[in-house]
């Protein structure tokens, strides 16, 4: 069991980082989330979550190369640690198990 329970937004951010794979930096994550989830995300709230996840060891980050864009500032790319990837997979399986355990009838009624 994990000591730290990820919140919903945190999970979404982690999944998005996973989706972007090696291209996950601030604005890219925001764009991806806005595109896929149709959800407004501010830089501030996203960055807070990213730093927190990094501090807890769920994410790693490194600075990229400087380009002419972005006022010459480097991008910070976030990526998964392998261990954390496994944790995320486990969570997913647990969820699926839960889904599968629901009797069909309950879903029909709903």
């Amino acid at each position, binding site marked *: 069991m994990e000591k730290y329970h990820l919140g919903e937004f945190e999970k979404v951010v982690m999944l998005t980082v996973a989706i972007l794979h090696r291209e996950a930096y601030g604005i890219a994550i925001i764009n991806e989330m806005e595109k896929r989830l149709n959800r407004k995300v501010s830089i*501030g*709230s996203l960055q807070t979550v990213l730093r*927190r996840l990094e501090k807890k060891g769920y994410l790693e980050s490194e600075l990229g190369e400087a380009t002419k864009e*972005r*006022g010459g500032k480097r991008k*910070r790319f976030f990526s998964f640690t392998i261990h954390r990837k496994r944790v995320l997979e486990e969570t997913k399986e647990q969820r699926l198990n839960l889904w599968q355990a629901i009797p069909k009838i309950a879903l029909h009624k709903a």
Partner: protein
Amino acid sequence: MKLSPKPPKLLLSFFRWFCHPDYLEDLEGDLFERFDQNLHDKGKNKAKWLFTLNVLQLFRPSLIKPLEGIKKLNPLGMLNHNLKVSIRNFKRYQTSFLINLIGLVVGLVASLFIYLWVNHEMRMDTFHEDSGQLYRLVSDAAGNETLLNSSPRFAGQLRSEIPEIQLMVNSSWGQLESILVLNREAYSLKGEFGSKDFFKLFSYPLLTGNAESLLVQPNSIVISESTAIKLFNSTDVIGQTLEWRWYSAVEKVTITGIYRDLPLTSSSQFDYVLSFNIFEQRFKERIERGNRNGRTFIKLAKGTSVEQVNAKIFEISRRDYPENTSRPPFLIGYSDYYLHNLYENGRPNGGRIALVQLFIAIGVLIILIACINFMNLSTARAALRTKEIGVRKVIGAHRRSLIYQYLTESCTLSFLAGIIAIVFVALLFPYFQQLIGQKISVEPDLNMIFVFLGIVSITGIVAGSYPALYLSGFNPLLILKGKLTTSNKDQWLRQGLVVFQFGASLVLIISVLVVYHQMKYVQNKSLGYKSDNILNFETVGMNAQKQQAFLSEVKNVPGVVKASGISHALFGAQKSSANITWEGKDPEQDIWFEWGYVDYDMLELLKIKLDKGRFFSREFGNENAKVVINKTTQKLIGVDNPIGLKLSVGDSSYEIIGVMSDFHFQSLHEQIKPTFFLLNNGWSMKLAISITAQNRHQCIQYIEEMYKKFNPENSFDYSFHDQEVQERYKNDEKVATLSKYASTLAIPISCLGLFGLVSFVAERRSKEMSIRKVLGASPSSLIGALSKDFTLPLSLSTIIGSLISIYLMSNWLAGFAYRIELEWWFFAFSIVLLFLFALLISTVQIIKTITTNPIDSIRDE
């Protein structure tokens, strides 16, 4: 190409200011990218607006710069490191470590003692509840001295007219040495009088009894715990009766309560309190006349301004006594009086507080001298540690962390010294109390711990601040290239510190000399009368007849030279400007006289010299209308031969029969006052017996036996007059002891500092000296070369020190009306002494340097 719009500058710089530097770069990039996107999608204005929003949303705790700075070094780790380096340095430079440590320990011991004493003095009388609301009614006397007594009648009037007065207690003019008799056994004890609210106004802790009702009944007495034990060997004594005696007064009194023994922080110490009615009855007439023969203590209501009450007292006094133009009575703080016991024109003007301030100044001075040792030695050693500093700086140490390092070093040292000092203070405390002749109450509380920590850390910081700032300011490049040379400025500073140290020591030595000689002068100056081998005692319970019989009997005791009586203490008491007039006196002149009633033989007993005329003598029959004056009075009258002239005291007129040479009844602080003596009618308050110096002990025993015969119920409590004379100089004696001990502390500390400095310089210049030696320099020229560094600052310090001590000492001497002159040899002697110490210390080191084989110091290069 058209320049694309930029994000708002102000917001950008705001962002750069608050953002955590670790995140700054990529976040700023994100902001720019977003701005460009928005610019493209939504237009310039919207983009700018969104940029603003984004920046503001980034302003959150997780992203802003931490308050304590960016570099999060482990502070504990650094401290650990600094401590380790400090200890290594202590081990490496043991001599200077020991010099610093000893200096600081001595300095701290001295200042901790001084703190304990000052703390005791400051707490005096503050243990009473609402001590800020307690006041004492006093009035001026003779313009510059405060007559502390007040008139009980006037006080009663104030009580009824001034509603701000919450409580008022009347008491006698002072504590009375009186006798308590239980089952025919007499005990001589110190008594206080108090009207009914005495124990409500003062918070003397009670053992038994209710503060409300202790002194309400007439003739009640409240005794202290130890008095109860002394008299009854029990504290269960409520309701017991005692007999109280004071001179001819005898009263039966009933014990209504017992108070715990008074704390040391009570300025007033007494064995029992009597209800005021006894005093009132005995001095009824005088009180009704409005004599100022009592003390009045007042508690004002909370929040009352004492100025307002004083103004009211002023009005009442002017209204009811318009003929009295002198300053009316006024209130002074009860607990203030202990330290501020000298008043001038109604304003506090020195007193004991001056002594307290002197103590504090000396404490600070000694600590400072010790701090200077540390400063001097560590800046001097700087040369040896420059490499360390250079390497640290190159590795990336901030100046601040170097400063911390040196402060850690000095604070470690001062804390170490502090701990050792506490041990010494605890061990030496009884001796300290003996030394200052005073019991001190020490109540360890949080405050004291804070003050201790404060003293120790301020010492550490003061000692460490200069080296820390100085050493951390070196340029690493120059250090590592080996091009750093200590500049003239540093040398000046170091020598300046030596000048200060030795100047201060010199001031102390000179003070010791001057104070010592003045005290010797005071003791040896002919007082104009005989003061040694004179016993004097109060005559409790003897009427005139008995006294006369005793006096004539006691003269037969072997060893007794003369015996007589006088109306007051032999040593300055009664002062009165009682309308004393003579022919041709300027009616405006208001002069204070000392006067008293004496018995026959008194003046012969005191061996007062006669200038003109004669003393009282039985041969001339009734001499009650005659007076003997002193020389000062004669000068005042302004006649060459006043014999036969008349002197009026009140309504009576006296014929002058003799003029005495001047003599000092007062302390030598005071000018001789005009004095005259009248003949008493056989009864005296005090008796004096002069005895021979041989077999004193046996003689006193005989006298005591005789006294017991005449006065079996009272004990024979005598004192030697010359000892009473000494009492007058108690404060001066304290100054004498203080300066003696302060200088015995300061001189070694200063010498230690000089020793350290000399040994360091000798070490640093050992190569130079060796080369000189190889080239054929004589030992004397080597000594000259080495000691040159110290002769100049030492000479300078003698000049400055002498000037300061001239100023200080002439100020101190100005307090004596009769004093020594500042002699040149005080200074010469002190300077020679100081130089001798300095020379002795430096020559040891210098000789060590010049006798070493030059090979030892120059071969390794």
